[in-house]
């Protein structure tokens, strides 16, 4: 599978732990922009002018505010989101790993840098139901492809990994993203 990781590594949130992030409450304009775009940009020749008309401000103000939200990381990117399955990535495996707590923050970034990993997080275990503390999503055109990637990850992790599993998605039940409550 071909993946493009170079650009993604510049995302503002890359490799940053969620703790310690500064969080300022949304300004009324930011909130209005999020509400106006949460189901998507208007697919018109001048989408930002259409947003400006909805919000009663200028097109330039819309672009300026969106640029600031991008710079602060409140917007990760303005982009198209594909349905993995429709692109032929029919094997979407959430690989989960039980990694020694002393090693996980060293190994997490290595797993994250691995070809084919789209998201990688440390999460709490839920014993006795769930022993895994490292999550990495893999996407392939077949389960064999995902399993080969998972085997390579297993080798990378070596003795620091006590157990692992792959949970394939068998249906997308909902995929809408964040929805703010309208006020």
């Amino acid at each position, binding site marked *: 599978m071909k993946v493009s990781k170079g650009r993604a590594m510049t995302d503002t949130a890359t490799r940053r732990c969620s703790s310690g992030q500064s969080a300022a409450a949304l300004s009324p304009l930011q909130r209005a922009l999020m509400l106006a775009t949460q189901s998507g940009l208007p697919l018109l020749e001048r989408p930002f002018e259409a947003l400006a008309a909805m919000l009663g401000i200028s097109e330039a103000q819309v672009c300026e505010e969106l640029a600031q939200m991008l710079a602060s990381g409140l917007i990760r990117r303005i982009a198209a989101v594909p349905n993995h399955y429709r692109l032929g990535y029919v094997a979407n495996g959430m690989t989960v790993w039980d990694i020694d707590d002393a090693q996980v923050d060293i190994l997490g970034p290595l797993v994250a840098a691995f070809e084919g990993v789209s998201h990688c997080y440390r*999460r709490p275990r839920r014993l006795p139901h769930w022993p895994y503390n490292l999550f990495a999503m893999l996407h392939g055109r077949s389960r064999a492809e995902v399993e080969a990637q998972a085997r390579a990850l297993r080798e990378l992790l070596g003795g620091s990994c006590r157990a692992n599993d792959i949970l394939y998605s068998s249906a997308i039940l909902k995929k809408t993203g964040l929805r703010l409550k309208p006020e």
Partner: protein
Amino acid sequence: MHERPSASSGDTRSRLQWPPQDAARLDALDAALINRLQTSIPLLPRPFEQIGKELGCSESLVLLRLRRLLSEGVLTRVGPLFQIERAGGLFVLAAMQVPEAQFEAVTAQLNAIPAVAHNYRRDHALNMWFVLATETPEEISGVCAQIESMTGLQVLAFPKECEYFVGLRLEARPHTGSERDGNEGQQGQGHD
């Protein structure tokens, strides 16, 4: 070959859902558009005119193709991707073990909740995995409690403790005869 026995193997629903959606037949322009737009849409007064210039087609064709790709479900969304944590909000992954007989009803119950941003069925005893997105961290526990009381099932929450990476783009490939044959062979292997 890698399917786990499900709670009720007599239920064929999960098999019928696989694969959930077929690969779309994309032409070269579709693939180029998807690959270009996964990276970013420029903050210009006429962003689609700019995209058209880069790809060698008209603004109106870009817009037509985008609307079509959205209506065909190849794209789920075109717009800003918000990182609500930066404004004090929270995304939390959570999972439940849902009995097969209840699966459809629980799906409908969860999907009706606006805070449920994504929901996937996965092949595991914990067979429903969803992402809750709320504007304040305090709302998460309320939504979890609401789901537990609605469904009578336990919600296991997995808030992220550290984000090592987010942001891979999946490459779209234009459809060709030989590639299709190759993919079908692979798919057959993967799902036996």
